[in-house]
């Protein structure tokens, strides 16, 4: 009766002594299988996984971090907007910064629409400015934001960090602008008492 695969594995791994299997000493086939198993165990054990570059581990962790953060957030669109809920102390200076940015953008667009540069061919011609629509959200938002803005807040806004907020504010759609207005009004009301 030949040794089973389970017997041979136990013998090759040393979890069972060869003395416990006298058949091994007398059967050429089982002996050969035993020797082959021992040899392959050694070959397999000597095989290592190539080590990737050190930067790979940082990238791997960063990718996993981003995936987990996305999993936690579970929102699309403007995720930065939701983070403002947790930083009310920043809302007033950011509101001031947003108001100033909006004012510049809106004033600039109004100027371009209402005033044409003198042309070489017809220096007296000017364009009629468009009337402000009643439902012009940026202007309404600007009005709301600056209603309670004092000089100190405006001054703080000039040294507020540049970059993300300004870009985001000038690229919001109508729904996002409405939500921003609501958040800022809430924060200003809470800050001003």
């Amino acid at each position, binding site marked *: 009766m030949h040794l089973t*695969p*389970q017997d041979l*594995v136990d013998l090759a791994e040393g979890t069972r002594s060869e003395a416990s299997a006298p058949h091994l000493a007398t059967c050429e086939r089982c002996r050969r299988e035993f020797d082959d198993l021992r*040899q*392959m165990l050694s070959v397999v054990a000597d095989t290592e996984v190539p080590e*990737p570059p050190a930067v790979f581990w940082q990238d791997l962790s960063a*990718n996993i*971090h981003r995936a987990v953060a996305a*999993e936690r957030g579970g929102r699309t669109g403007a995720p930065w907007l939701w983070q403002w809920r947790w930083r009310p102390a920043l809302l007033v200076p950011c509101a001031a910064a947003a108001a100033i940015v909006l004012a510049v953008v809106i004033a600039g667009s109004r100027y371009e629409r209402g005033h044409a540069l003198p042309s070489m061919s017809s220096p007296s011609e000017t364009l009629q400015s468009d009337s402000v629509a009643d439902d012009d959200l940026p202007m309404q938002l600007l009005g709301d934001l600056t209603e309670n803005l004092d000089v100190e807040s405006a001054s703080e806004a000039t040294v507020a960090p540049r970059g993300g907020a300004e870009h985001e504010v000038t690229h919001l759609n109508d729904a996002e602008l409405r939500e921003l207005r609501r958040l800022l009004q809430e924060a200003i009301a809470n800050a001003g008492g």
Partner: protein
Amino acid sequence: MAAASAMTAEETPLAELAEQALVEACLSGRPGAFDLIVERHRRTIYQLCYRFVGNHEDASDLSQDVFLRAFRGLRRFRGQSSIGTWLYRIGVNVCLNRVSAKAPRVEPIEEQHFVDDRVESASERLLREERGARVRQAITQLPPKQRAALIMRAYQDMSHQEIADVLGSSVGAVKANFFHALGNLKRLLGEEV
């Protein structure tokens, strides 16, 4: 005195938390908690995945998948095993699903990078690396359960019972898979061993 010096779990540095407390910190959203779990176990998981699929790109993708699945399943971690064992089981299942669905893409030997400080000649190192690459390639050609049994036993030193638990089979079946895996490897490698 003891009360004054005792810190709450929220105050204890993440690195000093016991495993179950670290998991709870992850679930409560404490920043860096899951990042720490990733950092501690990323190498083991990556190596597991690499052994299954034989190339860096797929191993990297699978590793990220493993940790994302682990994050989603954190609430089910009961502490009956270590986090490492738990992650490894997730990794095996992720890899088994992948290799069952898709044939592995094995990297050419020249694309595999090695970092090794063994004292050996360049030719010896090259021969060892080439043989290692062929062994890894042969492993990726094994049937999934034979591959899984081999990897878990040979590289993670898991007991046959632990392997059986992961694969949902018996100890006898695991040993038989292990036996046939080594036999198939010898046939695939032929005269090289």
